[in-house]
């Protein structure tokens, strides 16, 4: 076997002959070429050398890690050896201390009892510590609640503030609350009065009056403060009614009944019997007054019949004489009354109208003027006294068309039309609805009718909403009937811009006519033509009506202005209807009433 150390190696010797001369591919100039990189191993070129490890090794905070072998789970109190030792020493010390005390006191104190007390004290301290921790947590929670509440309030303040415009004034917050309360109280009174009057004035048997005081068989309930107030209010209304009936007549029975009822109303301790008695007294007195008035009327009619009959040839001479005597007596009485009244005048008796007014002393003139123009309140007794008679004489001289009966009711009339009366409420509703007619008219376009989202559609919807609300409220408050409301709302419907506009104009006319009708009635109820009757239509409603009707200029006020010097209106002689004429104090024609 050959020696491996000496035997030639079995390798192929490299051919190095080419190194003597450069080869044909040798680059003789330029940069040195980059060395050729060795090829990677085949395994490295394959896309997946091994399957990726996708095991989820992230920490799940909700799951505690598994304890190591022989360990305790997470959360176990770490009671180490030292802690246990300390507890043992503490217990031993406590026991030894108790033993020592027991030996020293010969068993009087210490012992097991002391050990138990020590343990109880320790337990109590632990409980107190827990309570303190709980209180701290509660305080923190309370603070958090407060903080959250303040954040809520702040946000809500901004949200509430966003419900109104940036720039606001007082008018944006004027509520109808007060008005609603007035309406409500007025309604309550009306209801109470109606109930009382139905009960006491025979419109309904007492047993049928709901909640009536006079229900037979019903237990007599004590008068509650509320009930007393209501009944006293209704009794007060009945007094007003009776006072109106009393008027200028000298009915002592009715007058006494009124005085008695007033005393009952004024007395806060009046009993149920007092109230009922006063009401019944008023009822009786009113019925008596009615009977007397009817009787007098019959007598008067009979007298007239007799006078008429006196002209008939068939009547006896005695009848004729009687008729003549009565007529003469009546004439004399009237003349005498006129003469008496004339004698009471404080001004120049030969004058009348404005001239007479000028002849009065200044203070008297202003007083007379206040009555003549309806500014002074008049009741049935205003002119009952001699001084009142003199005042009436002056008023009738200065205002020949002065109507005392209208003057007595003028306050109520004015309240009815411009105050809290049903007509005033209606007028408000009509005015409000009319005020929105211009918007409705303007927005009754194609966009307004058929293009939701457009400004015109939105504006028209808003205006329609206002009108509907107003009509709805009026119906709800009982000032407008359902039919009337439906008529107004139905008349607003139109399918094309032209018909819609036409309908709006018609509705505006309807509303305007209603207001105008009230205005006429209102003016007719004035005690004299010198009274400045308030205009029922609002300027805005008037403007809206003018716009819809295409009137460029505002029409004349509904109450035609009287020409200078006019003291009243009158029909032509012998007529009771048709056009009227203005006249002065002397009866001179001052032109046609427009």
């Amino acid at each position, binding site marked *: 076997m050959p020696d491996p150390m000496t035997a030639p190696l079995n390798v192929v010797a490299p051919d190095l002959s080419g190194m003597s001369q450069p080869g044909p591919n040798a680059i003789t100039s330029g940069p040195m070429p980059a060395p050729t990189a060795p090829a990677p191993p085949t395994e490295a070129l394959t896309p997946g050398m091994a399957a990726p490890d996708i095991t989820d090794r992230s920490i799940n905070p909700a799951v505690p890690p598994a304890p190591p072998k022989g360990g305790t789970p997470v959360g176990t109190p770490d009671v180490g050896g030292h802690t246990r030792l300390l507890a043992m020493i503490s217990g031993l010390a406590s026991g030894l201390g108790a033993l020592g005390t027991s030996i020293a006191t010969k068993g009087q104190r210490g012992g097991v009892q002391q050990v138990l007390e020590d343990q109880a004290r320790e337990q109590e301290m632990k409980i107190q510590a827990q309570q303190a921790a709980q209180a701290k947590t509660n305080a923190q929670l309370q603070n958090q609640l407060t903080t*959250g509440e303040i954040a809520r*309030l702040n946000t809500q303040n901004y949200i*509430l503030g966003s419900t*109104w415009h*940036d*720039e606001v*004034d007082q008018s944006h917050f*004027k509520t*109808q609350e007060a008005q609603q309360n007035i309406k409500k109280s007025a309604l309550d009174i009306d209801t109470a009065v109606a109930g009382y009057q139905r009960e006491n004035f025979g419109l309904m048997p007492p047993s049928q009056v709901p909640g009536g005081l006079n229900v037979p068989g019903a237990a007599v309930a004590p008068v509650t403060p509320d009930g007393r107030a209501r009944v006293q209010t209704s009794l007060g209304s009945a007094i007003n009614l009776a006072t109106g009936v009393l008027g200028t007549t000298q009915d002592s029975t009715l007058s006494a009944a009124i005085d008695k009822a007033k005393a009952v109303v004024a007395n806060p301790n009046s009993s149920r019997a007092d109230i009922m008695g006063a009401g019944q007294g008023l009822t009786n007195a009113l019925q008596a007054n009615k009977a007397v008035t009817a009787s007098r009327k019959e007598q008067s009619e009979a007298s007239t019949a007799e006078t008429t009959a006196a002209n008939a040839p068939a009547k006896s001479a005695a009848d004729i004489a009687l008729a003549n005597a009565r007529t003469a007596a009546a004439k004399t009485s009237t003349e005498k009354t006129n003469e008496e009244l004339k004698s009471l005048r404080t001004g120049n008796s030969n004058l009348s109208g404005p001239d007479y007014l000028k002849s009065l002393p200044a203070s008297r003139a202003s007083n007379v003027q206040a009555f003549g123009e309806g500014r002074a309140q008049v009741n049935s007794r205003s002119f009952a006294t001699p001084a009142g008679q003199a005042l009436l004489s002056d008023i009738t001289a200065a205002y020949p068309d002065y109507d005392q009966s209208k003057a007595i009711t003028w306050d109520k009339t004015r309240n009815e039309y411009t105050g809290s009366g049903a007509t005033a409420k209606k007028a408000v509703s009509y005015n409000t609805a009319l005020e929105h007619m211009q918007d409705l008219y303007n927005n009754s376009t194609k966009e307004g009718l058929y293009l939701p989202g457009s400004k015109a559609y939105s504006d028209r919807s808003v205006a329609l909403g206002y009108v509907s609300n107003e009509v709805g409220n009026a119906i709800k408050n009982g000032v407008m009937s359902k039919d009337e409301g439906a008529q107004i709302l139905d008349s607003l419907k139109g399918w094309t811009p032209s018909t819609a506009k036409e309908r709006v104009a018609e509705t505006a006319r309807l509303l305007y006519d209603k207001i105008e009708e009230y205005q006429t009635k209102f003016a007719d109820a004035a005690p004299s033509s010198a009274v400045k009757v308030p205009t029922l239509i609002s300027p805005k409603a008037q403007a809206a009506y003018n716009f819809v009707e295409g009137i460029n200029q505002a029409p004349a006020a509904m109450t035609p202005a009287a020409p200078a010097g006019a003291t009243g209106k009158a029909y032509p002689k012998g007529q009771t209807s048709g056009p009227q004429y203005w006249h002065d104090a002397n009866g001179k024609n001052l032109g046609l009433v427009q």
Partner: protein
Amino acid sequence: MTASQDAIQALAAKSQAAAAPAQQQPQQAAPQSAAPSDAQDDSTVSDNAADEAAAGKTNLLKQYSKLNSAIAEMFDSLGVKRSLSMPHQKGQGMAEHIQDVGTAIASVGGITANFLSATHSQHDSKGGATVAHPSEQLRQTIIPKNFEPARAVVFAVRTLVNKIEGLVGETPEVQKAKSVIALLGKSDMAGMNAFDAGAAPIALVHPLFQLLARRHSVYKHGGKGHAMLTPPKVQQ
């Protein structure tokens, strides 16, 4: 008892404490204002608000924004570091902004751990922002005597209440608010903790805003909205 009532009731005790010589507590982080100005009565200045209101120039939201701005300024001046400042983004609605604030504030303790004050995007010169201050730190900070930013807060709330009075008159709500402000104004909230000093104006303005909203609803919609929000029992 609500938290707002707590805050208002706390004022009396705090204000009385402030009437005594100011005892600076160790945890007080409030830097004194540059120079304690003389106690001037600003009631005459803000009384003009009622005239403005009557003249139809009132901008309540602007004034409320000023109040919030003054509160945030007071907290800043007391050295309480803000936990959040979220400026209003142009074109962003209120709901979006509130949502953003809600998201962001969760990372700094949540809405119950921070006092939020917000200025209005249109009425604030800086474009409006919601600012949060840590409420616990505010509770530990006491308003010092003659502290100008606190006086500015009292002035802002007094002006706002006067403006509201100019619009609705001296209602019971206004009377109550004015009496609380008078109490605050006596000592310019010195001695109160910063949280109460910021919470009180917001809490006492809230019933007034409710009153305004209610009245405006009645004026604008005949009270329909209010009626819908009112429990049936109350309606009767």
